[in-house]
């Protein structure tokens, strides 16, 4: 059982444009082992996945130096159709990987290409759907599945190839929390069945339950290798390589560093270990935990957006909004959370006038929004979309901002001046002449944001500002929003990233089934575990730690590591 299924020796890979994506990589993966690869965007994670699966060099070109061996084959020497029997790959976006009309056909596509008999195919499909928990959905159209189900379908299709190695490139980064949990559970099941997997991810909390070993990449080189505990508890390493360390690891690390408490043997990565350590420290009399916490009441400004009893149904009787009431006040930094399909995107579409509710009214500063066109409303309420590639089309970053200004009739020198100011605000002034598609994904998002902000809206809405971003990049947009908030703008964020809410929002509304079920300060909302579960979301790890220690006198209204640290007093 100790044979190496994957072997990389001194592998360096250079893309045709000269970018060196991997530098001197060497590692081995044993049969049945699950290896996770972490690192910031651009660290070389995707390149590594492509290299292992033969996508490089068969679909994307470049120069490979060193030796790559997967399941006994050298990927560059065999065509994809041969490699596909040995190694399967799953990518981020399920929508661009599914092409069949039914679930059954999708999974059967691979085996039928291999020319298996009909009985064998039926058997294989049945097995693959069972492993991924999709049994019974054979005849459904993939369009009707949720994000998590779609990605599990992609997994099932890969499994049906019965290959020896499964390579997964950020399989959960486009999913909502429920989808992440579903796919994580499937991966755990695969591990139990002895599948060899290489998984790249940003989700440290989830992967630590599955991975046997973690490899940390930075700028194409391996920085460290070890068990999830060894790697994720190394807060300094995580900081250096741009990977999210678990909240509790940061908490313990800071207790250790700042108060020189030396008897924490091992920095924990989950809240159960953290709880034990804290309890031990306090019973040993090393620390005291204060049980008072003060939540500052929020001051209410003037109402700026009023949503009154709004209903919306998509064709085919799909109810998206089921009587929503929401008043947004000036100075709010409001987060709207909920699963995909909870109605949060539909609500935003209704606010910016892209759809007309069938019942109810939406007012902007007392005026019915249905009086405005989308274009007119865009000057008052700016929406920064998830996918910047739906908006960018010009030859330079500057032109991109000028486009919006021209649409509202600002031209010439004044437009140029204003555009440069906005680019400066988002930190892209030096790149004003760059071709938008040459910018990184994060920069493209900032550019699309700049294009929206150029219209100088009073309310700024951010749609999933952290999706598909690494730990460092994920807060760039939110930081920008914070800056705007300080300058007096009202901010709304739609997200399922609880850390984001904890860090920025001063108010949070939870949606499920087209209704708002909670609307309050994040400190209050995050302690409503049952209602949050109903909405399919979980509070941040640090809040979960606080809640689990309620009996030990820890107040549960804790949403950041900073707040938790303030509770702890060191006994001298």
């Amino acid at each position: 059982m100790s044979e190496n299924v994957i072997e990389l020796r001194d592998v360096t890979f250079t893309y045709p444009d000269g970018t060196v994506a991997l530098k001197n990589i060497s590692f081995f993966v044993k049969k049945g082992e699950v290896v996770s690869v972490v690192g910031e965007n651009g660290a070389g994670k995707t390149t590594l996945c492509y290299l292992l699966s033969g996508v490089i060099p068969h679909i994307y070109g470049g120069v490979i130096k060193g030796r790559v061996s997967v399941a006994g084959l050298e990927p560059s020497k065999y065509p994809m159709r041969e490699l596909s029997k040995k190694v399967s790959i799953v990518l981020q976006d399920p929508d661009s990987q599914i092409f069949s009309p039914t679930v059954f056909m999708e999974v059967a596509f691979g085996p039928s290409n291999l020319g298996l008999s009909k009985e064998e195919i039926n058997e294989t499909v049945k097995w693959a759907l069972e492993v991924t928990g999709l049994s019974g959905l054979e005849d459904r159209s993939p369009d009707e599945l949720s994000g998590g189900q779609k990605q599990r379908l992609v997994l099932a299709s890969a499994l049906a190839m019965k290959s020896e190695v499964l390579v997964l490139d950020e399989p959960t980064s486009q999913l909502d929390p429920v989808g992440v949990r579903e796919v994580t559970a499937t991966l755990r099941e695969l591990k139990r069945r002895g599948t060899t997997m290489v998984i790249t991810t940003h989700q440290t909390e989830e992967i630590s339950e599955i991975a046997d070993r973690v490899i940390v990449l930075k700028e194409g080189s391996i920085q460290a290798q070890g068990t999830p505990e060894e790697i994720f508890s190394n807060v300094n390493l995580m900081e250096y390589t741009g990977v999210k360390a678990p909240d509790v690891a940061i908490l313990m690390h800071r207790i250790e560093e700042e108060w020189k408490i030396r008897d924490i043997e091992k920095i924990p990565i989950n809240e159960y270990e953290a709880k034990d350590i804290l309890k031990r420290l306090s019973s040993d009399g090393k620390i005291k935990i204060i049980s008072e916490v003060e939540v500052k009441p929020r001051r209410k400004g003037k109402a700026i957006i009023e949503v009154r009893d709004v209903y919306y149904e998509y064709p085919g009787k799909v109810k998206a909004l089921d009587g929503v009431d929401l008043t947004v006040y000036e100075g709010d930094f409001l987060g709207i959370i909920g699963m995909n399909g909870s109605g949060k995107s539909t609500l935003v579409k209704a606010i910016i006038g892209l759809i007309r509710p069938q019942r109810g009214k939406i007012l902007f500063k007392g005026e019915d929004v249905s009086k405005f066109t989308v274009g007119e409303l865009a000057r008052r309420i700016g929406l920064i979309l998830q996918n910047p590639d739906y908006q960018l089309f010009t030859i330079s970053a500057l032109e991109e901002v000028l486009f919006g200004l021209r649409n509202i009739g600002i031209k010439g020198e004044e437009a140029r001046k204003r555009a440069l100011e906005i680019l400066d605000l988002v930190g892209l002034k030096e790149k004003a002449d760059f071709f938008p598609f040459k910018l990184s994904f994060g920069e493209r998002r900032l550019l699309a944001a700049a294009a929206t902000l150029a219209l100088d809206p009073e309310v700024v809405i951010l749609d999933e500002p952290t999706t598909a971003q690494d730990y460092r990049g994920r807060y760039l947009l939110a930081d920008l929003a914070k800056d705007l908030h300080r300058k007096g703008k009202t901010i709304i964020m739609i997200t399922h990233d609880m850390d984001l809410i904890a860090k920025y929002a001063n108010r949070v509304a939870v949606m499920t089934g087209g209704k708002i079920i909670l609307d309050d300060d994040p400190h209050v909302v995050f302690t409503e575990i049952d209602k949050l579960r109903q909405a399919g979301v979980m509070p941040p790890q640090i809040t979960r730690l606080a809640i689990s220690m309620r009996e030990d006198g820890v107040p549960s209204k804790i949403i950041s590591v900073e707040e938790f640290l303030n509770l702890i007093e060191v006994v001298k």
Partner: protein
Amino acid sequence: MSFKYVEKDTLMHKLHPLIKLALLIATLLLALLFTYDYSIIPLLMMICFELVLWKIGGIEYWRVALVIKILLGIFLFFIIIQGFLYRGGVTPIFAIGHLELWGKDIGVFTLEGLIYGLFISAKILVVVLAAIIFVMTTSITKMSALMYGLKLPYSFSFTLLAGLRFAPLIFKSFSDIKDAQKLRAFDIDRMNIVVRAFKAYVPILTPLILNLLRKGMELQISIEARGYGATKNPTQLEELSFCLRDYLMFLLVIAVFLVVIYVNYTIAPNLYNSFLEYLRNLVIGLTGKL
């Protein structure tokens, strides 16, 4: 995303796709064969037959509403054009002016022109209905099996079917991108038609094409990583067979087709003429009073 096959348990869904294809071919023949305006009568008979099949197939109107709306627009265009320009037009309904051109006063909207416009619309409608019935009640699995049965090469049928699956996704991207650009105060709906045709679509089509290219790459990875082309003859998952129901339905389609043809060449011209005469008198009576 609505104009696509929906799984249902109806007679039309269970029918062998070849029969539905036969219906489509029959309607195409009718549309090509019928050139005189009196053929509107047999065409209407065929349309009634199709509507019955539509009902049996349980096709929901809203799923095809967009297609029908676009069609109605086209029909209206035909009716207006023919109403004013049809050279056999002798019974004026109303006039917006007078201009003699090629021996016809094109400022006058005539009854005959109106009916000729309706006739052309019916020719299109008869084919479109058959196509809608085919697409909405035939799963892609069955289409694939049909193409296999018709001995089309695998690479061809795979491309066609993948295209069928992606067409709605492309439409969705198009409308998402259009919305995204509207958010930048780009009021495409308020632009006049000339600006729209030449400039307005640049901000929409550029991102659309770039995104499709990216998606195409991922799709290629996903197809190739699953052994596409590993054998020349991939296993066929569904085999089609004829049953009594299919034979009966085939006979029915042929029978309706023949009856329609028969009516067209026997009683339709006279029936149409007397009906037209009645309409003419009606119109003259009405316009005469004004």
